[in-house]
């Protein structure tokens, strides 16, 4: 009778595949395709930390407010646009490129772009100007940062949602307050 030494037995066992039989070797067979679909339930996908940190640096540069559910970026309209215009200034590209990098890091997240004006001018005029400015930022991100248009919604709120007083308590003009109100806000819904 053949007697197996432990070392020989271990060697023989090593030659047997350690896992159950793999599905057929034809990758296009229905069997393999079904196995792949079933395997999705426990797939292994990791975050790449370096790239995540890269986005974090970009968000920091932009002064973004990051919460568990959204990322809010507030851009000074005076940096993006000339007074009373909705054509982007050439200097806006650097800021918008960073916005594009941040948005690219969250390829599934919907993006809301909202324009705001200060309290000068008529309400209809301000509404239109803020809508157009939000639209200009959207158009830039679609054309230059590869953001899908379908992900982006825009809105213009004119002077209706100030974040600072447009006038001082004595009724005089408040240029600093008005400057804060002239802005474009981007909200990325990350969850």
């Amino acid at each position: 009778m053949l007697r197996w030494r432990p070392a020989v037995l271990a060697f023989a066992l090593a030659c047997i595949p350690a896992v159950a039989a793999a599905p057929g070797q034809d990758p296009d067979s229905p069997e393999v395709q079904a196995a792949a679909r079933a395997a999705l339930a426990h797939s292994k996908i990791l975050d790449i930390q370096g790239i995540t940190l890269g986005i974090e640096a970009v968000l920091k540069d932009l002064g973004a407010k990051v919460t568990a559910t959204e990322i809010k970026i507030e851009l000074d309209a005076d940096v993006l646009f000339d007074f009373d215009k909705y054509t982007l200034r050439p200097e806006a590209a650097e800021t918008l490129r960073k916005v594009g990098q941040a948005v690219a890091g969250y390829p599934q997240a919907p993006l809301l772009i909202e324009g705001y004006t200060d309290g000068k001018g008529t309400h209809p005029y301000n509404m239109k100007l803020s809508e157009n400015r939000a639209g200009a930022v959207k158009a830039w991100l679609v054309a230059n940062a590869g953001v899908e248009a379908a992900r982006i919604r825009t809105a213009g709120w004119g002077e209706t949602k100030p974040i600072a007083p447009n006038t001082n308590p004595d009724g005089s003009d408040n240029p600093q307050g008005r400057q804060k109100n002239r802005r474009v806000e981007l909200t990325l819904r990350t969850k």
Partner: protein
Amino acid sequence: MAQTAPAPAPVATLATEDTNQPGIAADFTECKRKEGVLSVKIRFRNVSSAPAAVTLINARNYEAYYVTAANKKYFILKDSEGVYLTPRADGFGSLSAQLAPGDQYTWWAKFPAPPPDIKKVTFMTPLAPPFEDIPITDQ
């Protein structure tokens, strides 16, 4: 030992890289997304005038093959018994192919697919430099 095929069928090549295995070149021939699964095929060719070997898997290093897209890293899918959805290694955890001059061997693997808005991926292998910006074909 993996089976090899002598006749190189005309298959479209998405990218080609030299490998670190003497005499072997690698063609990326398929990157297909269907029902959440990304199917990848790479054709290894003996471009030398002498027989050459290519070792695809060594010590079950399946996780040395992965796809990156955006800020994610996607590994080869495994079934519920832990079997990787790629040609199976032998009992020693190796998969290699002996190729005569002009012979080729096509390796494949199934990965979880990146989201639909991702149109290109990078494929990492221990055998060659990264295959970058490989376009995904949706089916």
